């Protein structure tokens, strides 16, 4: 595995932006039954609030022990503790890698090539993602910026092509079914954001203004989410609720001059974002494992992670029921809470004790 210097905060947050964009554009409407699309316009406000709350422990750790990830801090306390925590993070990132690829499988198998076995494509994607992870963090950072240059104009183009189909009467009044379902959805949305855990782990690999970048990232991806939901709601109305992937359907409705069926562009956006997200997750898994168990080569870890991911995804592939079990909101929230809130909180408490010990020693 190629390991060189750090990447800039800009590259890092662009990478996370693309990673979160994938989660947004693969929104599955059946997960938010009691929430109308209009509510999804205000949901991001709650989402920002919960996003900031959940990141407080990581932020405090970052301010207190600059340049150290949660695993580095655990290692300073105890080697065994760091190994246990490392395994937690690897499982978390592995789980989200599997979910990312599984969503791609459902999308490809349902919308792009229905009734066709897409297992070969899954294998290909995972191999390419492993290769992306092999190239290292810097390469991923650079390719993210290039990908963003393609992805952002593509999304803007699709949305511009939809402007004449916007009908505000398709939107309902907000909080139609009360505030509670909206808050639940916001929590669910935060739970689906594994990028918070990525920040906790990848901090030492990033140069620049991380705090400012975090807020720009949080606001930009929330804004993108709100804009996409606005277009989905105002163009499709209740039709969106009947579609498995409403944003893909939205793109298929877009027409611009002689061009129609812009869902092809949307599909390419999806695949590019999936590549960045899965590569980053696989890279972080291999990196954490290598630091925890350095006797084995990083390349071997990559091969092992790739193989296990392929096998797991092939087991899940092809059946919507298996996918719905693995893509459970509760599991995702649990994973995010453990990796972003619980572990950093524990380290914060242990870290304080250690500071106390040091004071006594001095």
């Amino acid at each position, binding site marked *: 595995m190629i390991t060189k210097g750090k990447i800039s905060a800009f590259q890092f947050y662009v990478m996370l932006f693309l990673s979160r964009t994938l989660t947004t554009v693969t929104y599955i409407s059946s997960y938010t039954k009691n929430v109308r699309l209009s509510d999804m316009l205000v949901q991001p406000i709650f989402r920002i609030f919960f996003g900031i709350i959940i990141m407080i422990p990581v932020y405090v750790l970052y301010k207190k022990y600059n340049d150290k990830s949660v695993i580095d801090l655990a290692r300073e306390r105890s080697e065994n503790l760091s190994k246990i925590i490392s395994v937690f993070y690897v499982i978390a990132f592995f789980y989200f890698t599997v979910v990312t690829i599984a969503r791609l499988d459902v999308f490809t198998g349902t919308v792009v090539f229905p009734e066709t076995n897409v297992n*070969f494509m899954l294998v290909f994607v995972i191999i390419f993602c492993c290769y992306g992870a092999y190239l290292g963090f810097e390469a991923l950072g650079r390719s993210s910026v290039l990908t963003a240059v393609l992805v952002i104009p593509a999304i803007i183009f699709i949305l511009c092509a939809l402007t004449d189909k916007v009908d505000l009467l398709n939107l309902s009044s907000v909080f139609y079914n009360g505030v509670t379902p909206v808050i639940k959805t916001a929590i669910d949305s935060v739970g689906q954001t594994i990028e918070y855990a990525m920040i906790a782990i990848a901090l030492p690999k990033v140069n620049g203004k991380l705090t400012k970048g975090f807020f720009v990232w949080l606001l930009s991806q929330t804004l993108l989410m709100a804009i996409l939901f606005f277009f989905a709601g105002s163009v499709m109305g209740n039709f969106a609720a009947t579609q498995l992937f409403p944003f893909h359907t939205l793109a298929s409705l877009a027409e611009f001059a002689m061009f129609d069926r812009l869902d092809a562009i949307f599909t390419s956006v999806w695949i590019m974002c999936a590549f960045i997200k899965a590569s980053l997750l696989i890279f972080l898994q291999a990196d954490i494992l290598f630091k925890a168990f350095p006797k084995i080569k990083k390349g071997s870890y990559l091969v092992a992670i790739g193989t296990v991911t392929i096998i797991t995804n092939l087991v899940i592939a092809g059946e919507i029921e298996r996918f719905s079990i693995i893509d459970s909101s509760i599991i995702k929230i649990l994973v995010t809470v453990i990796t972003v809130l619980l572990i950093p909180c524990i380290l914060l408490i242990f870290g304080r004790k250690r500071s106390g010990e040091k004071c006594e020693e001095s």
Partner: protein
Amino acid sequence: MRRVLIIVLVIVLAIFTFSENEVYKKDIRNRLVIQGIGIDLEDDGTYTVTLQAIDTNSSEASSAEGASQPPLKTYKLKGDTVYTAIKTVTEKEGKIPLYSQNRIILIGKSITEDKMDDVIDFFVRDVENGGTVYIAAAEKTAGEILEAKNNDEYISAQNLENSIKSYEYDAKIFSTQLYELINRYNSGTKDFALPLFALKGKDKEKSAEITGTALFNNTKYREVISKDETVYLNMLSNKVYNTAIAFDSGKGTNVAINVVKSKTSRKVKLEKSVPTFVISVKMDADIAEISGGVSSVMTSEQIEEIKQKGEEYIEKKIKTTLNSMYQKYDSDACGLTRLLYIFHKDFYRKNEKNIDSVLKNSLYEVDVDLNIRRVGHEYLS
């Protein structure tokens, strides 16, 4: 690592290339490219689906002769559901239907009267059916339209689609795409409107024409309104892009205007539990024709007079159309219920089940602001 990756890629590519993959089975040569689907209900409760598809077997010959449209073939299929009926085409033709190129779904009268709910699910559930496909109703059977010939050529689904698409140039045609229909389906009233096709002519000189707009109440066909009334239905639905309107100038001459821009704003206010719908139409139009001899130089007063007459005429027509929809046929085809749903949700929830009578007893205020933009080969004196 790079070598390992290359070896793995070569192996996967080899397996992919030489295996019996389903991708190849679904090659375009093995697909039946559907252009139009017509659905009718038989007396025994089964469905007859008429497919119009591109005849790929004779495509080379016809294109060489410079045919105006791709060679078409129709299939009459029967089944207990729409899907099972369409599936039987594979037995006949040995090809798998490809729905993504479908241009129109034509619903026969037997279905529109009562069975819309039973046939629409397939088109939403199947991912190949795009949300942009046009839906239309047939005056009699959908099959007779898709099977009809003009000079030995089928009346193509493409022509039917083009007829509907002409709403962009002439608001006498109402258009409904699948996503719009389903949006209405899930919006409480299930009232909507579809363009109505009828077969005209005899023997080899048949043609399919849009004769008006079919209004639906709670998914059931109620009545058809004329193409002239359709202009005002489109106006109420904020779907007028271009249209011609003729009215009496009040001086024994007829004035024709070409509407080039129209924007309708719809609001609702609730007073003593009676909704009042306030409909404001702002439009830009050019004077296209004034009957009664060669035109003379126009004055600002004359234009103002035409503007006033035009506004009065359009207001009257909109009110007549509203009357037809809400008083006669109980059809909220222009979706005013949505305003109650959004802005007076408690009132809507309370009256959800008797919304037809609420709309019937509602008040409607119409205001038209007509702006005469151009007067043609003229100048003002």
